[in-house]
C-alpha cells in the first residue's frame, strides 16, 4: 500500500484528482431506471414454495401450545416450522457491533419460544405451493396463549411492580448487582472530570426533560429472501440485506450450521438505514426449505415490517448544561432511558457517547439505561442512538443561547470540539471539521435571511463516529484491459460508483472501463456489513489497496517485458512507463493485459483489510418553519445541511445522503411515531398512518459540503451516511419553539401537541 502521507500532500497540493469529486452516472444506474434491477422479492426459482409467518396478536403472552395439524392437512401446504425446530443457543453468546447482539435473544426474536413479547412476534412459519394457500394456512395454525399484561413504555417498565419480560434478567452495570429481576437490562456511563463540581462554577444552568417515540427506518422494500437447501445440506440464500456475510454468519449461528455450507447471494437492496443489518426471514426460509425439500420464498408485508422489524428506540432524556455568562460551557450532563424493545440492546450507550461530542467539555457525565418493553426489538437506524441524545443536548444549547442572548451558532463556535478535544467517550479527536460546519453555516444566505410572522429558525449540530472494519476487494484485469472491482459490500445508495471512482483514480483509466460489482459470499473474502458509514471509507480503502496491488502487478509485468528493474517502472495515466522513456514506449493496461499469458497469467490485485482511522463526522443544520397557530401545522420553509465529509468522492451521492438523512430526521421530528393501543397492539402498521415525509411536505434541502480530509484514508474520506440524521430533530424543534415562543420537548411535534402547547400558554 502507498504511503498515506503522499496522498495527503496530493490533497493539499495543487494537483486535482482526475476522477474523485466528479459526478458520473452510476454504473448500476440504467438497470434501476428501467426496472431491470433485481431486488429481494424479484427472484424466483422453479418449484419454489411461498412462506408466510404466523404472528402474535398479543404484546405479551405465554405460548401454551401450537398445533399445526390442520394447516398441514391443507392441500398445498408443504412444511410448518415453530420454535421447537430451532437449536437452543448459549445465552452468553454475544457479538459487539454498533449495537450489541445476543444470539440467544436473536433466535427468540426470529421465532418465539415460550413467550411472545410484542404484537407481531413470529410464532410459526408455513410454506405452501402458492401465496394464497400459505395465507390460508396461517389461520389454520392454532396457537393457544395465556395473555399477560404488556409493558409499553420506559416509565412503566422501570416501575417497581412492573410485569417482567425476562425472568432472571438483572440490571448490569450497577454496583452491587441487584438481586431482583428487572426490565432494566443495563446501565452505561461515560464521564470526564467532575461534573458536580463544575456545575457550581456555572453562572447559568439550563435543564429540561425530553421525550421521543419509537420510529421506523421506513425503507420502501419489505424484507425478502429465497432459500434453497439440497440433500447435502448445502444452503443457498438470495436475500436483500446490508450484508451477505452478516446473513451467512447469523443463519449459521441461529441454525447451528457450518458456515461453509451456506452461500448468500445479495440482491439489490431497497433501503435499509440499519434496519437490514439483522435477519428475520432467512433462518425460517432455510428451515422450511429443508423440511419441504424445495426452495422457499418469503416476503414480508408492510404490516409485518412495521410490527415486527427493527424500529429504533423512543425514550426519555434529561439534559443539563452549565455555562459562564460569556457563553463558555463549564459542564454538561445527560441521563437517558431508551426502549430496547423486547430484548436488551437499545443504542442508549451510543447516545451517551455522541450527545456532547460536538463540544469541548472538560467536565461531562452521560448515563444511559437500556430498558426492555413489549415492542419489537430495536435495530440499528442511521447513527443509532445519536439523534435522540442530540435532540436533548442541542435543544438545551438553543435554550442556553436564548437565555444568554448569544447567537446560537456563535455559542456553538465558542465551545466547538477541535483537533485534540477529548470526547465524552474518551478519545482525543484528530483533525475534525466541527468548527468548519458552524462557520460555514454562519455565512449562508439562509442563516442571514429575514423571517416572517409565525416563522422560526432553528440550528443544531450533530456528531457521528463513522467506523472502519473488515473489507475485502478484488481488482481483476480483463484481457482487453477493462477491470472488474469486486467487493463484499452491498450498494445501498450508490457505493458502486464511489468504488469505481477510487479504482479509476488509482488505475488512471476511464470509468467506463471499470465494472464494480457486489459479490456473493463465495466470490470475495469476508466483509463486514454496509453500516456505520463505513463502505466508502473502509471498502474504499480496500479497493484503493487492491487497485494498487494490481498496478504493482502490471508494473512487474512491464518490467519483465522490458527487461528492466521493477523500480525503473512507474505508473502514469493508466500506463506503465519506463523512467528512461526514450528506450521503451509506455504500455497501457490493455497492452499489458494482452500479454498477460506470456508474463505469468492473469493480472489481479487484492486487499483484505481491517480498516482503522475512520474519521468522525460533524454536521450543522439550519431549519426555518412556519406554524399555523390555529391548527398547529408545521411547514418546513427552508432547510440547509452543512457537513464535513472529508473528501466527497461522488458529490451528488454525498449530497443525496445529506438530503435524505435530513428529511428522515424532519419526519422523526414532526410526524413519525409508533402508536400503540391499550393492549399493546400497533395501531399504525402502514404508510397511511406512519407518516413519513412526502414530496409535497418538503422544500429543497440545501446541501453544503465541507471537506476537511480524514488523515486515515488515502483520499481523505470520512463516512457521510449517518450524521445527517443527527441534527434535524433539534433543528426542527428549535425552529418550532422560536416560531410559537414555547419550548417543544416532546417528539413528534404533531399538530395536536403543538396546538395543545399554544392553548396551554
Amino acid at each position, binding site marked *: 500500500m502507498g504511503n498515506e502521507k503522499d496522498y495527503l500532500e496530493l490533497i493539499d497540493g495543487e494537483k486535482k484528482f482526475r476522477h474523485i469529486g466528479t459526478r458520473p452516472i452510476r454504473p448500476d444506474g440504467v438497470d434501476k431506471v428501467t426496472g431491470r434491477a433485481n431486488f429481494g422479492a424479484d427472484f424466483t426459482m422453479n418449484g419454489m414454495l411461498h412462506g408466510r409467518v404466523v404472528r402474535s396478536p398479543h404484546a405479551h403472552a405465554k405460548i401454551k401450545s401450537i398445533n399445526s395439524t390442520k394447516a398441514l392437512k391443507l392441500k398445498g401446504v408443504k412444511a410448518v416450522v415453530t420454535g421447537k425446530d430451532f437449536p437452543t443457543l448459549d445465552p452468553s453468546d454475544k457479538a459487539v457491533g454498533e449495537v450489541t447482539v445476543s444470539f440467544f435473544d436473536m433466535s427468540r426474536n426470529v421465532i418465539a419460544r415460550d413467550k411472545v413479547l410484542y404484537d407481531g412476534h413470529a410464532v410459526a412459519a408455513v410454506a405452501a405451493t*402458492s401465496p*394464497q*394457500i400459505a*395465507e*390460508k394456512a396461517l389461520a389454520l395454525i392454532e396457537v393457544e396463549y395465556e395473555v399477560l399484561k404488556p409493558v409499553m413504555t420506559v416509565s412503566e417498565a422501570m416501575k417497581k411492580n412492573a410485569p417482567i419480560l425476562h425472568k432472571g434478567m438483572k440490571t448490569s452495570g450497577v454496583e452491587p448487582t441487584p438481586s431482583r429481576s428487572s426490565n432494566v437490562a443495563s446501565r452505561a456511563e461515560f464521564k470526564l472530570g467532575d461534573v458536580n463540581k463544575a456545575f457550581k462554577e456555572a453562572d447559568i444552568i439550563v435543564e429540561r426533560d425530553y421525550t421521543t417515540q419509537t420510529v421506523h427506518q421506513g425503507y420502501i422494500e419489505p424484507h425478502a429472501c429465497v432459500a434453497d437447501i439440497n440433500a447435502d445440506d448445502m444452503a443457498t440464500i438470495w436475500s436483500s440485506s446490508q450484508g451477505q456475510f452478516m446473513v451467512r454468519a447469523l443463519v449459521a449461528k441461529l441454525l447451528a450450521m457450518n458456515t461453509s455450507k451456506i452461500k448468500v447471494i445479495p440482491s439489490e437492496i431497497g433501503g435499509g438505514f440499519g434496519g437490514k443489518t439483522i435477519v428475520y426471514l432467512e433462518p425460517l426460509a432455510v428451515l422450511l426449505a429443508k423440511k419441504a425439500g424445495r426452495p422457499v420464498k418469503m416476503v414480508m408485508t408492510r*404490516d409485518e415490517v412495521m410490527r415486527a422489524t427493527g424500529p429504533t428506540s423512543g425514550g426519555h432524556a434529561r439534559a443539563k448544561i452549565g455555562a459562564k455568562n460569556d457563553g463558555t460551557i463549564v459542564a454538561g450532563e445527560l441521563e437517558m432511558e431508551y426502549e430496547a424493545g423486547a430484548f436488551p440492546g437499545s443504542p442508549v450507550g451510543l447516545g451517551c457517547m455522541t450527545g456532547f461530542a460536538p463540544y469541548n467539555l472538560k467536565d461531562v457525565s452521560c448515563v444511559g439505561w437500556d430498558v426492555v418493553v413489549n415492542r419489537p426489538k430495536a435495530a440499528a437506524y442511521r447513527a443509532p442512538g445519536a439523534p435522540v441524545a442530540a435532540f436533548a443536548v442541542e435543544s438545551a444549547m438553543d435554550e442556553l443561547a436564548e437565555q444568554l442572548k448569544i447567537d446560537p451558532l456563535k455559542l456553538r463556535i465558542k465551545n466547538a470540539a477541535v483537533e485534540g478535544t477529548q470526547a465524552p467517550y474518551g478519545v482525543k479527536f484528530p483533525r475534525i471539521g466541527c468548527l468548519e460546519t458552524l462557520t460555514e453555516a454562519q455565512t449562508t444566505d439562509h442563516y442571514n435571511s429575514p423571517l416572517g410572522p409565525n416563522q422560526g429558525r432553528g440550528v443544531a449540530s450533530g456528531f457521528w463516529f463513522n467506523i472502519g472494519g473488515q473489507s475485502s476487494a478484488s481488482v481483476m484485469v480483463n484481457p482487453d484491459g477493462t477491470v472488474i472491482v469486486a467487493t463484499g459490500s452491498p450498494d445501498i445508495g450508490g457505493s458502486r460508483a464511489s468504488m469505481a471512482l477510487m479504482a479509476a483514480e488509482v488505475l488512471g483509466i476511464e470509468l467506463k472501463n471499470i465494472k464494480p460489482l457486489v459479490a456473493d459470499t463465495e466470490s470475495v473474502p469476508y466483509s463486514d456489513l454496509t453500516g456505520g458509514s463505513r463502505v466508502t471509507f473502509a471498502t474504499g480503502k480496500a479497493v484503493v489497496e487492491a487497485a494498487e496491488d494490481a498496478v504493482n502487478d502490471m508494473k512487474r509485468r512491464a518490467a519483465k517485458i522490458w527487461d528492466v528493474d521493477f523500480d525503473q517502472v512507474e505508473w502514469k495515466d493508466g500506463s506503465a512507463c519506463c523512467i528512461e522513456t526514450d528506450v521503451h514506449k509506455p504500455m497501457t493496461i490493455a497492452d499489458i493485459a494482452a500479454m498477460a499469458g506470456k508474463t505469468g497469467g492473469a493480472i489481479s490485485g487484492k486487499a483484505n483489510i481491517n480498516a482503522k482511522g475512520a474519521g468522525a463526522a460533524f454536521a450543522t443544520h439550519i431549519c426555518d418553519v412556519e406554524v399555523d397557530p*390555529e*391548527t*398547529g*401545522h408545521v411547514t418546513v420553509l427552508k432547510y440547509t445541511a452543512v457537513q464535513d465529509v472529508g473528501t466527497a468522492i461522488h458529490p451528488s451521492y454525498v449530497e443525496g445522503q445529506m438530503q435524505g438523512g435530513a428529511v428522515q430526521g424532519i419526519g422523526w421530528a*414532526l*410526524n413519525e411515531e409508533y*402508536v400503540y393501543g391499550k393492549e399493546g397492539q400497533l*395501531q*399504525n402498521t402502514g*404508510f*397511511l*398512518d406512519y*407518516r413519513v*415525509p*412526502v414530496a*409535497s*411536505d418538503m422544500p429543497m434541502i440545501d446541501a453544503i459540503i465541507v471537506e476537511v480530509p480524514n488523515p486515515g484514508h488515502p483520499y481523505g474520506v470520512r463516512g457521510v451516511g449517518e450524521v445527517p440524521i443527527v441534527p434535524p430533530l433539534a433543528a426542527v424543534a428549535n425552529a418550532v419553539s422560536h416560531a410559537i415562543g414555547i419550548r417543544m420537548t416532546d417528539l413528534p411535534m*404533531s*399538530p*395536536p401537541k403543538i*396546538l*395543545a402547547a399554544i*392553548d396551554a400558554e
Partner: protein
Amino acid sequence: MSDLQFSSPKSVKEAVEILSASKGKARVLAGGTDLLVQLRAGRMSGSMIVDIKNIPELRSIKKEKNGFTIGAAVSGAELGAHKAINKAWPGVVEGLELIGSTQIQGRASLGGNLCNGSPAADSVPGLIAAGATCKIAGPKGLRTSKVEDIVLGPGKTSLKTGEFVVSFFLPTRPKRSGDAYLRFIPRTEMDIAVVGASVSLTLDKVGVCSEARVSLGAVAPKPLLVAKAASAIIGTKVDDEALTELSLAASAACDPIDDKRGTVEYRTKVAGVLARRAATIALERARGN
C-alpha cells in the same frame, strides 16, 4: 385458490340481479381504493366482488336542466377535469380531489367514498353541504336519498341488501353562491382527514347570506350536517361576528374520538377553525359569482 368470485355487470339491472342473488355476500367495487386494501388485509367480508365500472351510467357526468348527474364510479381525476362542475361546485370537487395521491385520484369515486362508510370521507361533507342527493338502485327499483342519510356510523350505511348507489345529483346554483371544503391533515398529502369542513352558501343582492349548509367530517361517528352553524351566518353579511358564531357552533356539534390521527380536544377546536376558513372561501366565491 380462494373461492372469491368476480362479476362485471354491464347494466344497472344486471348489477341489481347479481347483488340480490348474492344475499349480502357481494361487495361492490368502484375505484377499489378502500375495498382492495380491505381485501389485502383480510378484512373484506363477502365471497363476490361486483365491479360496477362497466355500467355506462355509473361512469358518466350529465348536465341536466336543473343540475348535474354524476355517476357513482366517476373518478376524482375525471370529475376534476369537468369544467362546469368545477365552476358551480368547487367545494364538492375539492373534496373528491383531496382523497389520496394522483394514483388514487385515477380510481377513487364519490360512490365508493360514501359507501365505504368512513366518518372521515373527504368527499362527503361537500356533498352534504351542497344538498346533493343520490340515486339508489335495488331489488325494489330506484329510490332517491339525501347524502346525509346514507352513512349511519363507521362502516355502516342505510343501503339495503342488493342496493347500490348509481349516481349523485347536484342542483343548479342560484347566483351569488359558493362552496368550499377544507380538511386538516398532518402532512400535505396522503393522510386521512383529521377534521373536514364544508360550507355552501348563497348571498342575496345586498350581500346578506340567504341560504347556507355546513357539514363536518371526522368529528363524529358519521359526517354531520350542522344546522346551527349554518343558521349562525344566515341573515348576516358573514362578518367576523357571524363567523365566530359559526365556528363555535361547529365545535359544539363535534362528538369525536381520540385515535392515532387526533385527539378529542384537537378535533373539536380545529373543526371550528376549518368551518370558519371554509366559510370565508365560500363567501369569496359567492361574491365572485
